[in-house]
């Protein structure tokens, strides 16, 4: 189904905000935002049913431009605010948008425990391997040996994979896409929003201004080309050895499992407690 771009633009963007948006030319955040809006358009939800929560960072500017119920919260705490929202009003469709530093550095604990708790939330994590907004400091996903303003002579720490962390922490749906695979990305976001349980979509995005420039990876076009050349689908990745997979990006649905959701379990606990009280 082709989605008319005008419909998305006119229906979901806040036109009283200053456009063009603040992101740098060619920034992947705009592509992620378009994919999210296409996914919401496909789901045919009304704008009042959706809450977009975000923390601090480049990608967290996204709710500012979209005309849903939006929440721009403190650094790393998008998921905590979203948890509160979901517990207070479980009928809402809550989506959180975080960057890699936001979700896994300052909000790392919130992220793994939200995944463990398995609330019915959707988390979209835009991974651009660096803290872009604050001036290019290294983040937990900055690869070993790469340069940033706080690792001028090469990064000495190792990075970790956000999607695999989410799988281990117990999220019920985990998927990964890159900004080059925009059509796949909006399908994955739609799947994640339809999923009952904690759903994580990691989007590998380009920060050519802070990360690409320092590491000589080229501009937006060159970085998108590397994503195109290095992406491997989950099916293909199963056949490849670990050595062949080094430096590749596995895209697609990594985990999709059914697990009890904590809001529903909480209802059951309340019922059981009420019954026990009645017996006494």
């Amino acid at each position, binding site marked *: 189904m*082709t989605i*008319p*771009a*005008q419909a*998305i*633009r006119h229906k979901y*963007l806040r036109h009283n905000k200053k*456009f*063009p*948006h603040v*992101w*740098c*030319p*060619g*920034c*992947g*955040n*705009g*592509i992620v935002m*378009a*994919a999210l809006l*296409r996914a919401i358009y496909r789901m045919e939800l009304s704008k009042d049913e959706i809450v977009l929560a975000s923390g601090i960072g480049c990608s967290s500017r996204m709710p500012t431009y979209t005309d849903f119920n939006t929440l721009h919260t403190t650094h790393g705490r998008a998921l905590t605010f979203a948890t509160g929202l979901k517990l207070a009003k479980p009928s809402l469709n809550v989506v959180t948008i975080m960057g890699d530093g936001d979700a896994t550095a300052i909000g790392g604990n919130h992220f793994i425990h939200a995944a463990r708790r398995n609330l019915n939330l959707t988390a979209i994590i835009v991974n651009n391997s660096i803290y872009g907004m604050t001036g290019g400091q290294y983040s937990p996903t900055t690869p070993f040996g790469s340069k940033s303003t706080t690792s001028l002579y090469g990064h000495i720490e190792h990075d970790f994979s956000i999607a695999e962390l989410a799988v281990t922490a117990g999220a019920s749906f985990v998927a990964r896409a890159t*900004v*080059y695979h*925009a*059509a796949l990305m909006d399908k994955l976001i739609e799947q994640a929003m339809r999923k009952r349980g904690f759903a994580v979509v990691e989007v590998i995005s380009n920060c050519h201004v802070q990360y690409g420039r320092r590491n000589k990876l080229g*501009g*937006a*076009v060159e970085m*998108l*080309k590397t994503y195109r050349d290095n992406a491997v689908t989950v099916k293909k990745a199963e056949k490849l050895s670990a050595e062949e997979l080094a430096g590749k990006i596995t895209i697609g649905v990594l985990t999709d499992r059914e697990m009890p959701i904590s809001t529903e379990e909480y209802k059951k606990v309340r019922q059981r407690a009420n019954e026990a009280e009645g017996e006494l």
Partner: protein
Amino acid sequence: MKEKKTSPDQPATTETTQTPKKKKLYDIEFYHDWCKACGICIAFCPRHIIIADKNGKPGIEDPDKCIGCRFCEMHCPDFAITVCDRQPRRRKDDI
């Protein structure tokens, strides 16, 4: 008045759309006020028909060559590209 204006153009457009060999045509519009000239649409167009102007902003020379893949529309970070099916021309002054 409107009907009089459309009537001379009408038969020509219906002929072109009804002939089976004619491929589907698309129109691409660039909203230059929102464009930041990142060059993604120019670099990734499978037909290489999007060409930069002197400011680096995209333009299209031969829209008939567009295959309607919508790659540029989906990958534009600034919501500045619209690809739509070509509508039949209703008036003489339609672009």
